[in-house]
């Protein structure tokens, strides 16, 4: 008995895109999670009465400009995420670090803007059907964004911590792919819950 738990050696015929494929599956899972939540949101909205003519929002006013800025911030972070990927493929650590840091700052800024918007809107949990549904769907979409941020941060550290190699940029590519999906998931949630309402 060695007394430790050695890691099983990998190697052999492993193909390089396992992480990207797994990320694709994760994106599919997250998109179905949002489909389930938004589907229930729309079903309840439909059942609540005709639109317009029914105060589905219980008197709440959606702060559209702030939420649009938040979305634009997220779209900008997509650009910086791809910049990081482009730089890592060129083995340009300086640019890659800058781009990853910018992406994370923009992502955190987005979360801050959304929280501010919801506060300004007065979205209070438990106050009504719209409030609960909006809180839950927004929370799920924000959770995807947070996971995306962590993923980009971790893969950034992993790929740039040593040297930027092919494997590292593949890992970062998977994270950027998930980030693109997170932006899309937020955009769909925003459109459904805060634009179409």
């Amino acid at each position: 008995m060695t007394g430790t738990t050695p890691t099983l050696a990998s190697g052999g015929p492993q193909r390089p895109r396992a992480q990207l494929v797994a990320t694709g599956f994760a994106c599919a899972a997250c998109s179905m999670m949002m489909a389930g939540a938004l589907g229930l949101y729309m079903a309840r909205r439909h059942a609540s009465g005709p639109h317009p003519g029914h105060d589905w929002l219980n008197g709440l006013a959606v702060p559209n400009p702030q939420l649009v800025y938040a979305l634009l911030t997220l779209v900008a972070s997509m650009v910086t995420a791809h910049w990081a990927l482009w730089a890592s493929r060129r083995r340009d650590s300086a640019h890659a670090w800058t781009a990853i840091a910018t992406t994370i700052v923009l992502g955190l800024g987005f979360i801050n803007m959304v929280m501010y918007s919801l506060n300004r809107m007065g979205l209070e949990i438990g106050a009504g059907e719209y409030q609960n549904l909006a809180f839950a769907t927004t929370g799920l979409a924000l959770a995807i964004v947070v996971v995306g941020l962590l993923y980009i941060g971790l893969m950034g550290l992993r790929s740039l911590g040593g040297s930027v190699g092919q494997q590292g940029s593949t890992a970062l590519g998977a994270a950027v792919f998930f980030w693109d999906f997170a932006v899309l998931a937020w955009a769909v949630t925003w459109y459904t819950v805060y634009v179409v309402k």
Partner: protein
Amino acid sequence: MSENSTATTSRGVPVEDPTPFGWLTTTDHKRTGRLFIVSSMLFLVVGIFLDLLVRLDLTSATDFVSLGRDGFAQGFTFSREALTLLFLIPAFLGVAIYMVPLQIGAPNLAFPRAATASFWAWKVSGVVLIGSYIGNGGPYGGWANGVDLHLLALSGLVISLLLGSIAVATTVMTMRSPGLYLDTTPPFAWSALVSASMLVVSLPVLLGQIGILYIDHRYGRVFLAGNYGIWERIDWIHRTPQLFIYVVPILGVTAEIVLATAKRRVFEPLAMYFTLGLVGLFGFGAWANFSVTGEGADIIDGLEGVVLVGLYGGALLGTAGLLGLLGLALIQNREMPKVSTSLLAALGAGTLVLFGALYGLIGAAADWLEIAGRGNDGNPQLRMTTWVTGQQSVLIYGAGLLGLLAAVHWWAPKIWGRELNDLLGILNFLVIGGGALLAFLGPALSGLFTEQPDFVYGDPNATAIYASWVDDTGAETFSAIGVAGVVILLGGVALLLLNLLISVGMKKGIEADEDPWTAQSPEWMLPSPPPIGQPDQLPTLVSGTPLLDAAEAEEAAV
């Protein structure tokens, strides 16, 4: 080589830590697979026992005799969750985690740590789920925090099963031996890919629903009728067509065993992969009907009826096509195939999946076409009666248990290094088959002739409705038949565990060599069992049937 016997292999590669900490942090898919298989069997006992109590409750015309009026609804929901999320899905996920890398020539699973995390998260969530029910939580529970805890445990179960499914699907997609393509992959590995992929796109819907249900239940209960509104939105994961996704790996086990026993390749490989995919594909969509629209208690007609009939029809077509191809392979074999537990159980499981699809199609068509006034004049549709329990019995008890029996007997040499007792196995097949038949017949006949409700969603007096229904309709007798079936099934599971204990635990089973069945897929080229803690070393594969290729080449040379 026993994992406990030596610290290192002959090549100096360290084996894994046999202490509990080693099992907790293992990076070997073989350990994770074993953990899933054995744990799901133990949870199965819990699920069957609860189902027995639920069915016992329906045998009395005057009152519920076991769980009582307060506990019946929780017992019902608990048993369904235990049978699907704690047994059916994880059992075959465990078999896939163990066998898939061996079948495709991969050194390990794509994300072994994720698979291990998946197991422990599933286990902990399962225990928390049981705890929430014990504390009077769960749907229809009286303890509000327990209801929330149940929802959290449910989301933990879903996330952990998704993690394991993604690991399996990614392994098949990206870690096949160079030269082994998707259309030459062994059928079980393909079925694992189909099932895992479909789980990945269907189970997360439940996660989204749980997010909303949790928020609403915990804060204000604005639109959800308290804890009574939960079950109708999550029940779809225990019903067909969703159940078809869970049984796809069982069809893979059937294909694997039948083809190896017949010593034949399938007549048309692409058709086999297509039919397996078809069954998985037509299992998709249950969530749209039950969870999103929340119409569990309403009548299904028009387009919804057409869609349901189409889904059952597609699953039936896929299963029939697959069994037809396997039947051809058996017929082509010039020798009489050796009758064994695994072959009998595999054929039984495949046939029951076919029957389950046909049964579902008949029920959906009767509801849609309003045959015998179904859905009119206060007559419930079949899908709202115990007809549904009959179908669950066919697919979970019949196909699920026989599929597990087949898989465990077939791959026991590869998992534990010993063959299970075949005589005990055949007896086990008969017991499980007989039990499943009775467990199906009782509720099926009751649903058909007495229209006894399956479950009354959202009705606080559901238990009273059940009790009144049993009176003077003959449902008592039918329920008693179902109870007898479940008791026999409990005996069947006990027999399987006894066989494992005697053959593996007490080491009475025959020690297996590399290929005790003269099988054909790649895992039989490895030692039985492959050493724990080492990558599985297979030569580069160019086919999913290397042993059959070699046998044929040898025959041709002679």
